[in-house]
């Protein structure tokens, strides 16, 4: 995989993971006293 494509894939995967974790964190913040 060329470096640029790998970097783009890595960024995409990390971005989706950050969004997922952020959502889970918001759920925790909202509902856990």
């Amino acid at each position, binding site marked *: *995989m060329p470096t640029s494509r*790998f970097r783009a*894939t890595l960024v995409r995967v990390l971005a989706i*993971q950050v969004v997922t*974790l952020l959502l*889970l964190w918001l759920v*925790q913040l*909202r*509902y856990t006293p």
Partner: protein
Amino acid sequence: MHWINWVIVGVYLVFVVGDGLRRTRGTTNIEGYFLANRSLPWWAVGLSVMATHLSAVTLIGTTGQGATDGMRFVQFYFGLPIAMVILGVTIVPFLHGAKVYTAYEFLERRFDAKTRSLTSFLFLLSRGMSCGTIIAAPAVVFSAIFGWDLTWSVALIGVPTVLYTVLGGVQAVTWADVKQMVVIVGALVAILVVLIVRMPVPLDDALRIAGATGRLQVFDFSFNLTETYTFWSGILGGTFLMLSYMGTDQSQVQRYLTAKSVDEARSSLLMSAYWKIPLQALVLLVGVLVFLFYVFQPPPLLYNPAHEQQVIAAEPAAYRALQERYASAVEARDVAALAAADARDANDATGQGAASDGSPAGGTTTSGSMTAGSMSALDVFNARDADVIAVREEALAQAERVTGESSRDVNYVIPRFVLDNLPLGFAGLFLAAVLAAAMSSIAAELNSLSTATVVDFYKRWAKPEASDAHYLRVSKISTAIWGLLACFVATYAATLGSLIEVVNRFGSFFYGSILGVFMLAMIGRARALGAFVGLLCGMAAVAAVSFGAPQISFLWHNVIGAVTVVAVGLVLSAGVRSKDAAAS
């Protein structure tokens, strides 16, 4: 269970086996049987990877864990997306480019035959046993729920799976996985919708009650080596575990070796990177909602019906007394839950905090924020919930005393909920999903066990020169033998319990170590001697940590194993290189 549910299960079984048999056509050589002639599209391979990873234990045990322990288990998967990306640029192109049948075959090309044979043997040993436990876990639950003999439950799961795996090879396995993933996700979403629709209070209030019990606490940022589910063990330990599992375990490697090209193989792994954490969160959320469902509906004291019957027969008066205490504790919790929901509604309506008895508790609020009133109502709820848990623990201890078995009641929470409470047809759909989850994992295991047996041992050591037809026949026989062995282990899982535990523990010693060997394979300076001795040292190091410091969570064992193998391997390889240089 209603006959319509059985019809749904029957239709599913006939469809999966029938389609598997249809795929037997065209499989005339060993590459077709084991690797589908490297022709499958990325999305089918990606779904197959996910289906293999998702076993019946996930549907039954993990949902139960969500109900009893909450969402924090999802941290276990935080390393998976990182591992998928790393594999995409390292092991996947190496293995796909080498045109190998097994991951271990690659190690012979890079190092030597003994490293290949040892790693393949370790895979066969651990996976052969674990395949039996994958069948046993749902079979034991089916037997307890439906009152069947364990042999019949094992046969219901094992026979159709062995049939389509033996006859259809990897084509049947992969295309069955695709359908099975659809059934599994469909069943989970259907149950989620029913749970939300049937919740007697608004979902936001219900989730607040779950949050008060700590079930929506996803993250634990403490750096604690003895705690399995923390953010750091998930990110670091989880990455190494997933690198080992997805990168070096033949049952996973074989999935993406069937892809058309390196790019399609990478894309199939990225599907897991995108969807695994949301899927796992969905599974756990279903469990949390089942907990909430039972906050407002009387739950069984013991979820395992077989244990319940034995306890009633052995100690009827004591159990009845517990049931009465349980009923009043549950009723008090129900009242506290409704009060907690009302307190929040009152807060939202007036903008004022109100205590659970309706008296003002002071403090202004905005919608969605916690107030003193709703907090105290939640505290009351937590106290009532603790009473319920205390009575249940007494019942579980009684069940363990009477039956002489570990209760494992958590595995019966979801099946009992589905059978007792869902609308007609949903129980059949759920049962089909559990069968699908079990069958998809077992089929992939059997297929990969047979591949390693035939390619790494039979073809390598016993009969190197034979016709493709001969190897195909041997492959089918080998798959059938592994299938029978798995069913045998599953049937006698209870009596083989300690043996299975030993094998599983032994398996955990070498997972990270095998990853270390593959990491060495990608370092040009590494030599065969370094890899082989490094592997042995890695396993010894993990065994030493496992026995010497058992409090360290198993997720760190893979890190220790892999790092030891690479360190020892590189040092020894440097010695070998300097010796070679001196000799020349």
